[in-house]
């Protein structure tokens, strides 16, 4: 680190931060060279897209990765606001806390928020209980996303996916080409050399862009801590009414949750490692109620982050198939 820069953040060495229950660090720490490099590479990617594509959008899923993505966008274009809208695909099965956080974030950062729901799916009453996670995800997430991208005429969409999440994501380019049908052909990806991203497309085609490709789960949390980035409170441990189902801890979030015979919600101290639709996202038992506690807890994890995401487990190559059809 250059001396001057370190000097601009007095007493910032080390990460002896005091964090409150809301997870907001009181003081910003200096970034490690590792995080600084990841951050600046991501900023470069944001700027390339805005310079080369006509009408980008940021796909905002409200989770920690989206929070980091937004923070990087704020950095990339400062003092301008990010010159693109933020799109949320609302399945209507998100946690209330997520929707409140989404609206508050858009207000705080002065972003243009576009919310899209697959109205046809709503009319047909598609839900995770009657239709199974696979069909439900296809209709309420993948189809909804494709509708929203087509409606907005977006030619580029930023997503928060990381290569360390899942093995088909480990294969994906940073600029990932989509056909006019919004499909991904993993066997015919464009070569991607250095940071010379090729954003050239024809009408109807688009690029999915993943600025966090080279980040790991730990990088994300350490960056959230270092940069004092707000995240949804559900990431912090709190008592919740829980039922255990197929080894997963499911929060009984509202009256729409259907209990099976013999299931009885009990209060447990839990938090989420990954956030999705509430009936499809397993919580973990935890007492970690601050960012340092979350990071400390991560050091002992035995399972991967997407372990709690039921939608990944429907079948082998589950994620790849969803991605080929247009899922992020």
């Amino acid at each position, binding site marked *: 680190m250059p001396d001057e820069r370190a000097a601009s953040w007095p007493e910032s060495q080390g990460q002896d931060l005091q964090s409150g229950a809301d997870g907001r660090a009181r003081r910003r720490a200096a970034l490690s060279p590792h995080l600084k490099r990841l951050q600046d590479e991501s900023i470069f990617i944001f*700027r390339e897209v805005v310079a080369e594509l006509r009408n980008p959008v940021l796909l905002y899923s409200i989770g920690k990765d989206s929070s980091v993505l937004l923070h990087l966008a704020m950095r990339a274009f400062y*003092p301008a606001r990010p010159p693109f809208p933020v799109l949320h695909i609302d399945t209507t099965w998100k946690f209330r806390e997520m929707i409140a956080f989404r609206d508050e974030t858009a207000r705080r950062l002065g972003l243009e928020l576009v919310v899209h729901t697959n109205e046809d799916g709503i009319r047909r009453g598609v839900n995770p209980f009657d239709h199974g996670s696979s069909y439900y995800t296809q209709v309420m997430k993948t189809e909804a996303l494709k509708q929203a991208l087509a409606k907005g005429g977006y030619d580029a969409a930023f997503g928060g996916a990381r290569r360390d999440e899942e093995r088909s994501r480990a*294969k994906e380019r940073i600029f990932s080409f989509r056909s006019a049908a919004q499909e991904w052909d993993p066997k015919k990806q464009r070569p991607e050399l250095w940071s010379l991203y090729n954003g050239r497309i024809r009408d109807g085609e688009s690029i999915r862009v993943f600025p966090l490709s080279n980040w*790991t789960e730990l990088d994300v949390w350490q960056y959230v801590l270092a940069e004092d980035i707000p995240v949804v409170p559900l990431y912090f441990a709190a008592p919740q009414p829980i039922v255990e189902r197929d080894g997963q801890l499911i929060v009984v979030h509202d009256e729409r949750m259907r209990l099976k015979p013999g299931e009885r919600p009990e209060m447990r101290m839990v938090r989420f490692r990954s956030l999705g639709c509430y009936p499809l996202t397993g919580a973990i038992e935890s007492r970690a109620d601050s960012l340092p506690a979350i990071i400390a807890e*991560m050091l002992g994890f035995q399972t991967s982050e997407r372990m709690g995401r039921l939608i990944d487990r429907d079948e082998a190559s589950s994620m790849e198939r969803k991605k080929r059809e247009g899922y992020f």
Partner: protein
Amino acid sequence: MADSAAAAVEAGVGQRTGNVFRLPAEAGMLRFLTCGSVDDGKSTLIGRLLFETRALFEDQLAALEHDSRKYGTVGEHIDFALLMDGLEAEREQGITIDVSYRFFATDRRRFIVADTPGHQQYTRNMATGASTADLAVLLVDARKGVVNQTRRHSFIVSLLGIRHVVLVVNKMDLIAFDAERFREIQETYENFATGLGFESLLAIPTSARYGDNVTSASERTPWYEGPTLLAYLETVRIETEPVGQPFRMPVQWVNRPHLDFRGYAGTVASGRVRPDDAIRVLPAGKAAVVSRIVTLDGELAEARAGDAVTLVLAEEMDVSRGDVLAAAGDAAPVSDQFAAHLVWMSETPLIAGRSYLIKAGTKTVGGSITAIKYRINVDTHEHLAAKELHLNDVGVVNLSLASPIAFEPYAKNRNLGSFIVIDRLTNETAAAGTIDFALRRGTNLTWQHLDIDRSARAALNGQKPAILWFTGLSGAGKSTIANLVERKLFAMGRHTYVLDGDNVRHGLNRDLGFTEADRVENIRRVAEVAKLFADAGLIVIASFISPYRADRAMARSGLEEGVFLEVFVDTPIEECQRRDPKGLYAKVAAGKISNFTGVDAPYEAPENPEIRLSTTANSADALADEVLADLRRRGIVG
């Protein structure tokens, strides 16, 4: 969780102790790739590294065990290749198609490893993985030694500027850890690698399958005294940023949120910059002064290589995306002509003369490969003559851009010396290129000065030299009119020469066929001959279909104004087909000829020809007179 941990221990897959993440804040990052031929054990090696550094989670291991039973090729054992082959097609076929990125860490470093495919057919994906790596782990199978793919990958690794290589001689268990065989492979490789410019090259004997010398020293190689692979990766010194170089920053995006702010967003490519530094805006070369370095955290006192910042200049000036801001006292060179290495990545071959888009830094400009100097046999490093570059070929070319760019040779700066070639039609990334040096034609290749020049010869002949370039469809009447024009000029005592399409193909161009590359070369040679004849003082009459505007523009280029006259013999295709003087249209209709101009190959009519001749309204003789009248008006003949 305790139960599943116990289950993992029982299954013999080890227990995650969590030391993976316990990193000092300053732990650096190393990005490397694994490469080498198919089945040399790349994926197994990475699987082993991930496993031993406890970067694999229980659910991932469980999924891996499940897949190993389904697709595995190593019997009872976990098939680590399945961990890396993230695509369904890869697992089904048991091959790696595309590069896969994996992450692991030790107490000393974090690692991003790119596992790249071994098949020659997927070399472009291997190059994708190599382009962002600082070090290459090159595997060879101890039984097979150095093979074609070992050499191909080494060459690409070298070409992309990777200076640190680890030669992993794997599957030592299958040759009973034979020290002599190891040294033999090491020596063969070191001989081959001379001249590839590697700063460090370490050979390690391993068995990725059993873990020998991967993360812990093997008892089965007492004769090997070097470090294990992991120990070496943790400690090898890598310079990721060029040091001691002057300030350079390609402008990515102009930030104008309101009238009072105009900043230039970009990532510093080399050197450092501070407020009040004098800079130049390239390629124009205008001088400017940096006033502020703006970030979300406030203004910085300095920005260095790798920093993504926004610079504000002291005065408003015209700066746009693609310009390079550079230290005023040591600005980057600017050129539009380069010698460069290319790795061709498209199924459609490279053809010299065709127009592509070139993206270099943050600038995208039109350009073409003016010459393929040679193709490189990556086995022997031999230079081979080539007219085209095909998928996965490596070649040295001359590159010409539509406008100049600021650059550095790739060896000096990766950011400013690399480019990609984009196909204008399909938008695919057709090649990766590295700039070797600028071709300054004026200084490198001087025109031999001769005392008797064109005007002296023209004066002696009593005529002004010119090139009459007849273009039009086959059967349009080019040769007929050209012949009449020459006869009339000859009768007037003028010195002329006719270059005819069919005639030159019997001699000068008899080595050329009718592929697109050959057509381009055919016109290029004729144009050069026409220029020499004009220089000799002759009135040259060239008669060629020459269907492409770009080719005719090339024939015109470099000549003084008024020397080159484009004569468009404008005859509708229906009329040409009716006349069919050589019976060619009949053959086309019968399916005996394809790629025929005007029928199933394009003819790009001239937009602004000097002379346009309509053959349906006038006789050939009247049209020849029309040409002569035009030459008189232009003062070419008296």
